[in-house]
């Protein structure tokens, strides 16, 4: 039980908040958040956060792959030989990602085109491999689901947050709907890749400050 060992479960409060699943979920959402906690999977976070719609589809894709992968890995963990566990993850992750990519191509062709290679690159996204290796392989299916949902939603919320500011400032729109009138010059810097670095850096700085405050 590698990761649940350090887990603090409160003794008081509602039953839900005292349950292990809930705390694993929160752990993934906040302390182990892939973007500002573990600082993993940044490549896709930088690339797809120029528009909120792209960020939403990308986070859903990652969450689905993460969830299904965690369920599979945690349920066959006793079958996987220790020496080839990485290869086993790769097999499963790549099959899932290719399937998700095809689904997007068929049902959301425009967004699939906008996301370009980044959906296929979920295969090499460290978040999924990381959660499989550090959590799913050691824990029960139930806990693995909580963890995958927490980390997936943590990734998604971070992406949406970044995309919110980048789309609002860069294009003056949210989900394609105009919020700031067209007469205002948009800060195009935020919509281009270098702007993503500034936005992400600021975001991590702000969240880290809040977390430090909370820890005191």
């Amino acid at each position, binding site marked *: 039980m590698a990761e649940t060992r350090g887990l603090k479960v409160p003794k008081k409060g509602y039953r839900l908040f005292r349950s292990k699943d809930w705390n694993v979920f929160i752990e993934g959402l906040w302390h182990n958040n892939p973007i500002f906690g573990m600082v993993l999977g940044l490549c896709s976070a930088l690339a797809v956060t120029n528009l909120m719609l792209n960020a939403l589809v990308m986070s859903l894709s990652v969450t689905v792959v993460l969830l299904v992968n965690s369920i599979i890995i945690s349920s066959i963990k006793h*079958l*996987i*030989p220790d*020496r*080839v566990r990485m*290869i*086993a993850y790769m*097999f*499963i992750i*790549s*099959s899932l990602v*290719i*399937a998700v990519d*095809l689904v997007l*191509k*068929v049902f959301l*062709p425009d967004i699939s*085109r906008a996301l370009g290679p980044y959906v296929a690159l979920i295969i090499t996204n460290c978040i999924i491999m990381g959660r499989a290796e550090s959590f799913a392989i050691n824990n029960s299916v139930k806990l693995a689901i909580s963890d995958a949902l927490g980390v997936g939603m943590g990734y998604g919320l971070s992406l949406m947050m970044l995309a919110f500011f980048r789309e609002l400032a860069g294009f003056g729109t949210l989900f394609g709907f105009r919020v700031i009138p067209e007469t205002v010059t948009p800060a195009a810097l935020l919509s281009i890749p270098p702007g993503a670095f500034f936005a992400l850096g600021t975001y991590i700085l702000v969240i880290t400050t809040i977390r430090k405050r909370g820890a005191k």
Partner: protein
Amino acid sequence: MKSVRIILFLVITSSLCTLLLAGAQLGYEKASAVFNVRLYGTILELFSIEAAEDDIEKVFLENFETRTIGSTVYYISKTVEKGSVVFKTIGAGLWSQIELLLAFSPDFEKMYGLRVISQAETPGLGARITEMEFLERFRGVEVRPELKVVKFASRPNEVDAITGASVTSRSVEKIINRGVIEMDQAFGRDEGEE
């Protein structure tokens, strides 16, 4: 014994994954028939043939003949501008690939029309090649000896380029001219004089 177990495990996992992917691919191929319908719709629109959303495929097959030569699929009109040839072609743009739908008159001398299927050019500059105003400039333009996209079109084989998007304009010109050569070879037509 341990290595046997490992090999067995890997063989089983990879077979299962292969099966899953084969299934996904089959489903994808079925679903991509939808893309064909979208292409048919664009071609019908180019030839100003009316068709209801649900009959696009039927109307298209009534009006066009499909012929595959080499790796390209050519659609040949059976009604409007009888003998016109339409096909899809792809080439390099400024940032990404540009996919064009080219239509040529029955004598292969003029363009019948042009549509952009996909592109990722600079928004506001190169991406303006998708605007009808630009696309309609290609109606009836001569492609012999070759088509030219220039600043001020004055000859029958010239088209006005987009200001501020010279690379994209030149890419479109190049893709069309290469398309003409491909079409000539496919239909066994001698190359134009000069």
